[in-house]
């Protein structure tokens, strides 16, 4: 089914082949028939093993036959002496090895081998590891064999340190060693765990690892594995669940809370409560601002009338609780004070989007690496791995200071590696958003992102308290992420490439929306806007729909709440 070249044959050759195949099928079916006869009669004996062996030797993926063999062997395990069982298992392992020589990638064979070893009274794990070594020499990427090796390691108690050394050997002798680097990514955090509980690697070992991977990709700059591994080394640990921002307003009377990661409130013991002036608000019904999912980072609650006075000062506190039992409960709280004469207030934690505290040693290592990658880029200007790694290193070292340089390299990448052009453009958009949010720490009321070349919208949860947002003159085709703009009153999306307004529906405070010069052509495209309760001004000039009178009329009819609708 894979890798079978189509070979031209004459009608006569085809006829010979057809007869051969028919003969094989007849023999196989006769064998199968006999097997089923025996199985239905409950015969678990040597003949069963003999017939199934003949069939499986040529067709190792017939699970039913392996199941029957297991039934026979299990019967032996249940009824025969330990020595007899051991002998049968050794014979089975020999048979399996002969199957592997024919087909080293059969799920059925490897699975049965592991099963046999699990049932054998005295499995020879040393020999098994040697078998794995042998098959990995034939094919370093045989994941069946790697998985089997991990099974053997687990059963026989080989240490993670020993396995790490094994990957050292593989990496230093072979190319095409993605599987070895991958295994390292699992072993390193076990052998040298970071002390901060992040699940990452301890600093000293991490720096040595940077050296190791650097040697690999400078020796063979076109072997992808090392570059992939390097990206992982640069990565961060997982986010901890915590409160990130609280916002309260009098009109509409509403609280919103942002968390550091998506949750489903009321599930998995995660709950959120609000108290006003020390008094808990009963029965909070939180709404997820993220559409199309039960999980979200941004949750809003329509606070009942009378909870807040029209002008008085109030202290609002949000409390997050998560954890399986009371002892493990991680309660986190965030408060903000609504001043007497103000309509809203917000409080946000300082979030780092792109800057991370690095030790001097790590900064030095990465700076040297960046220099070396730039030299490699000069020698091999079309090596996309070097270009991408330069980008990632600059992001790690100086994301704000090197923004222009980073975007320039991404632009080069789109030319050198055009198939993935859209990926590099979206990555650039993500970096731009990170830098904007890093600089203004997401507490600004008005955010301008005009003419930034944005192809995708990231981190819109961090724009949840923004009242005016300008996204004009970008390359947006999709605004589904705008659902998080819970406080936006004025939104400008002129000169983009929007064919639909999905994501702009139900924006509770949106009053003015400009969508000039997009690609909106039907009334369906703007239908989501009918659910924006406060929308008064809508500019649709310069869209394909403007030239169709019928569409224009149906748009006016679909959006009766809009007092100022500009179409032509």
């Amino acid at each position, binding site marked *: 089914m894979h890798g079978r070249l189509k070979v031209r044959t004459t009608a006569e050759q085809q006829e010979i082949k057809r007869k051969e195949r028919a003969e094989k099928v007849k023999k196989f079916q006769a064998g199968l028939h006999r097997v089923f006869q025996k199985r239905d009669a409950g015969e678990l004996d040597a003949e069963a093993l003999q017939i199934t062996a003949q069939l499986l030797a040529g067709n190792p993926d017939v699970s039913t036959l392996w199941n029957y063999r297991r039934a026979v062997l299990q019967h032996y395990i249940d009824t025969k002496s330990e020595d007899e069982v051991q002998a049968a298992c050794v014979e089975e392992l020999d048979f399996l090895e002969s199957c592997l020589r024919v087909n080293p990638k059969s799920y059925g064979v490897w699975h049965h081998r592991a099963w046999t070893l699990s049932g054998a009274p005295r499995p020879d794990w040393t020999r098994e590891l040697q078998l794995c070594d042998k098959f990995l020499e034939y094919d370093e990427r045989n994941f069946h064999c790697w998985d089997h090796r991990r099974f053997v390691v687990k059963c026989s108690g080989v240490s993670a340190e020993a396995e790490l050394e094994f990957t050292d050997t593989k990496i230093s002798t072979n190319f095409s060693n993605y599987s070895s680097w991958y295994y390292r*990514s699992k072993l390193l955090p076990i052998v040298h765990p970071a002390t901060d509980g992040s699940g990452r690697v301890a600093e000293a070992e991490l720096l040595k690892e940077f050296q190791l991977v650097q040697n690999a990709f400078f020796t063979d700059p076109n072997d*992808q594995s090392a570059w992939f591994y390097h990206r992982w080394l640069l990565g961060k640990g997982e986010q901890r669940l915590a409160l990130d921002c609280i916002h309260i307003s009098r009109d509409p009377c509403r609280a919103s809370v942002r968390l550091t990661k998506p949750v489903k409130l009321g599930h998995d013991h995660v709950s959120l409560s609000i108290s006003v002036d020390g008094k808990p608000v009963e029965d909070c019904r939180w709404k997820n601002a993220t559409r199309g999912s039960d999980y979200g980072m941004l949750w809003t609650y329509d606070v009942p009338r009378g909870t807040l006075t029209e002008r008085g000062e109030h202290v609002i506190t949000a409390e997050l609780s998560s954890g399986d039992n009371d002892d493990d409960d991680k309660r986190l709280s965030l408060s903000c004070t609504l001043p007497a004469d103000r309509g809203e207030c917000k409080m946000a934690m300082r979030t780092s989007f792109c800057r991370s505290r690095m030790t001097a040693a790590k900064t030095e290592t990465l700076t040297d690496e960046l220099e070396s990658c730039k030299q490699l880029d000069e020698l091999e200007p079309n090596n996309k791995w070097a270009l991408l790694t330069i980008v990632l290193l600059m992001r790690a070292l100086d994301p704000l200071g090197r923004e222009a340089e980073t975007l320039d390299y991404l632009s080069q990448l789109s030319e050198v590696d055009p198939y993935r052009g859209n*990926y590099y453009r979206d990555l650039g958009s993500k970096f731009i958003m990170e830098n904007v949010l890093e600089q203004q720490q997401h507490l600004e009321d008005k955010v301008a992102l005009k003419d930034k070349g944005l192809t995708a919208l990231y981190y819109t949860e961090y724009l949840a308290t923004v009242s005016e947002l300008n996204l004009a003159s970008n390359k947006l085709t999709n605004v589904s992420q705008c659902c998080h703009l819970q406080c936006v009153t004025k939104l400008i999306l002129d000169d983009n490439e929007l064919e639909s307004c999905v994501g702009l529906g139900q924006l509770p405070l949106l009053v003015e929306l400009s969508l000039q010069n997009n690609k909106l052509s039907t009334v369906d495209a703007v239908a989501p806007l009918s659910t924006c309760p406060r929308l008064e001004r809508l500019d649709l000039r310069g869209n394909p729909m403007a030239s169709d009178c019928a569409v224009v009329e149906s748009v006016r009819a679909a959006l009766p709440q809009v007092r100022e609708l500009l179409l032509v």
Partner: protein
Amino acid sequence: MGNKTILQQVFSRFCLVFVAQHRLEAIDVNKAVQHILACRNFDGGFGTRPGSESHAGQIYCCVGALAIVGRLHEVDADLLGWWLCERQLPSGGLNGRPEKLPDVCYSWWVLSSLTIIGRLHWIDKNKLVDFILASQDEETGGFADRPGDMVDPFHTLFGLAGLSLLGNRSLKHINPVFCMSQCIIDRLGLTV
């Protein structure tokens, strides 16, 4: 489920229970999701079982299963999307993991995964269409794993499914999670 259960089984169980009975509460979804997440790797992908290397076929099973139970946010879409779009080779075809040959069936496993996580535009669609069509046998019909090889039903199915996802409108819309026509999914009243 013990740790001997491989991901294809998790995914197919989800599908069966969801499609046939719409009764996901019959399964301990949280435990199944924890098992899937235990198969997550450094490159954002998923392997056969915890500790296994990422492979496009397994990724499809995991991403599809997470989509059915509404837990797609557990996937690092940008990291996985990058790994998946790197499956596209100069020929335009897609492989199943690094340093392997392109294969029409990966037009499905990789493409459907990219679609589910909203990153289909990260590959060059036209080049992939060219590769799939070049894998057709113009004498007998059907698709092979790559140009010049023997055709078979397996690659014909995934070649057509891939072409549908790539926008070929002489074919019905295909649902990327279930690998079934969207009209059937709609008729069954299923939403994912």
